[in-house]
């Protein structure tokens, strides 16, 4: 028997079958968690906000257009949830820098940092939060400049400048001779 599609599960969830929504969560929880982790770079916060994302989506399920792709939609909701979280927790740049410095790798962590993926994660985490969001939306959610501007309610010029500067910083960190 074929596994039910996301569409089938959402229709059942809309009829009140919470187990069907549970199956949807099982399918998409890893990608949603990774959206949150790339933006927040904190496992606990990322897991909490991924859970929050699914809760909010469940509440809004009645208004969800069944013809849309659920995966893309829920990842966008996750990015927004993280964006609001960062807005509510907005601290000074100095505090951000302090937090990054606190996370200087210990000797044991340095072994892990040798792995390229960890280097990329560290480089992403070092970006200002608004840059991180734009990178997430462009690279991992494949949103256009216009869509990002609309989603974050910022001018198109800001989207471009955030994105291009973010890439410049990432390239410097990742392609440095000792990077």
């Amino acid at each position, binding site marked *: 028997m074929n596994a039910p599609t996301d569409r089938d599960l959402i229709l059942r969830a809309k009829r009140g079958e919470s187990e069907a929504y549970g199956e949807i969560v099982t399918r998409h929880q890893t990608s949603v968690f990774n959206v949150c982790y790339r933006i927040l770079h904190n496992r606990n916060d990322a*897991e909490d906000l991924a859970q929050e994302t699914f809760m909010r989506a469940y509440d809004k399920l009645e208004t969800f257009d069944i013809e849309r792709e659920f995966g893309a939609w829920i990842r966008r909701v996750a990015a927004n949830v993280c964006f609001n979280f960062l807005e509510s927790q907005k601290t000074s740049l100095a505090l951000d820098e302090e937090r990054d410095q606190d996370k200087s790798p210990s000797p044991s962590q340095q072994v892990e940092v040798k792995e390229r993926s960890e280097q990329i994660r560290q480089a992403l985490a070092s970006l200002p939060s608004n840059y991180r969001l734009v990178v997430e939306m462009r690279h991992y959610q494949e949103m256009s400049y216009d869509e990002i501007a609309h989603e974050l309610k910022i001018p198109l010029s800001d989207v471009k400048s955030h994105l291009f500067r973010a890439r410049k910083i990432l390239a410097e960190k*990742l*392609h440095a001779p000792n990077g």
Partner: protein
Amino acid sequence: MHLTDEQLNEYLDHETNEREQIELHLKTCHECSARFSDLQNLFLELDSLPDLQLTRDLSKRFNPSRELIRVPTRWFNLTVFAQATIALVALIIAIPFIAIYLQQIDTTMLVTSFAEVQTLWNTWLDALSTFEFESTAFELPTLPIVEMSSLLISLAGIFVVWIFGNGILLRNQIRR
């Protein structure tokens, strides 16, 4: 003149209308081609970032039925076993009393008692309709049971054990 960072970024993001001019320039300019290659590598690296795994299952909240069919705990199994044992012992103790009780039942006496109850019921109804209450109207009939207290105590004991045991078993559900 070289390509700007903006042009290179927009080209890789498929957000430019100058694709042909940019491609033409990249074919002839080594410096821009090198910059383009670096940026392209960055794109590939970002795309290749593997997914991390969650440490907990976020779907649990939406699957209440899965919670209900969870494996019983050791404490739960022990309580079930203890309750069943106590109930069985209490029942074994009660059996002789039940046997004595059954022997003491006189069927003729039962019919007489039933007739007495019916008569009494009629007397009560008459008393209620006329509001003339006689003291004898409320005397209870004598039931054909002798030494019933032991049996009642045994049955009450079994009942208490059953209620208490189920209370322990259902305590988690009651708290929810």
